């Protein structure tokens, strides 16, 4: 019975090759549209984003709506094409065009600062000790931003990324 049904379905598909090609084309186009302009998922590994992300075994959900740095804000986590090699990395945006940011790690001897140039952003990993980021290769063109990380997935566990990691500080300044 099931063999006959399968045979019938196969027969239908083979009997209408044009319809099958159209269906496959639509499916491929929709899949491409979804992953190119909607949501992408990718496994994350490495120590540069500890303790926000784990070393291994976590998947990231990346919103492609924010590609090329569209509507990203300071504090957002972004996936980007690393300018010095072929890989994709994940870092946190700490400066957008016109913002002022420290060139080095806080606490180091150098306290030089720069203004982030037009069309660029300043990205830094949450684990300052093991991150290769703008402190190493300078401001990153916004065109290299692939999207914004919106959630993480582990087996049987889905978690949205914290929206705004900046907290109001209510102390009087030292100077």
């Amino acid at each position, binding site marked *: 019975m099931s063999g006959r049904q399968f045979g019938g379905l196969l027969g239908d598909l083979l009997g209408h090759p044009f319809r099958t090609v159209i269906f496959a084309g639509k499916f491929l186009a929709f899949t491409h549209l979804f992953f190119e302009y909607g949501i992408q998922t990718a496994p994350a590994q490495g120590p540069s984003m500890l303790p926000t992300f*784990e070393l291994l*075994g976590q998947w990231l959900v990346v919103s492609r709506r924010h590609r090329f740095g569209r509507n990203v804000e300071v504090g957002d986590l972004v996936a980007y094409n690393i300018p010095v090699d072929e890989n994709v990395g994940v870092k946190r945006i700490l400066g957008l065009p016109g*913002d002022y940011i420290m060139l080095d790690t806080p*606490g180091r*001897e150098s306290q030089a600062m*720069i203004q982030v140039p037009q069309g660029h952003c300043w990205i830094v990993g949450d684990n300052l000790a*093991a991150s290769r980021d703008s402190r190493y290769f300078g401001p990153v063109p916004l065109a290299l931003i692939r999207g914004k990380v919106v959630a993480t997935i582990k087996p049987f566990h889905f978690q949205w990324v914290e929206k705004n990691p900046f907290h109001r500080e209510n102390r009087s300044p*030292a100077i």
Partner: protein
Amino acid sequence: MAPPCRSFPASDLPLAVQVGLNGKLRKTDDGRRIDLVKDCELFEFVQYECLVTRPEVRNSPVECWPVQRLFRRCQDKKGKFTVETTAWEGATAAAAATSTKTELQQDKSVPSFGKQNHSVEISKSV
């Protein structure tokens, strides 16, 4: 590649924030200069210095020390912009102001800025 950028010391920050990306003076609604302390809200953001204590072990514990960074969100006529004030008004600046920079020079492998006496130990899968 990014265009050449002029760097400046953190002490010049109050002056540097007066100039926008186009090289012109920033304009505020009432025509005043931007006062970092009065006009810009202060925010704190914590990053970390983490160490995988036993990288050869799969479930190695990870030790993290918080590194506090300070930012101020200012506004001019064109919109909001962010200024990192860690080196200008943070603990480092306070230490420099009171000439007690010895702690900074003791351990350069882990920034002493914002480093607390205790570490946060987090178990992570390696």
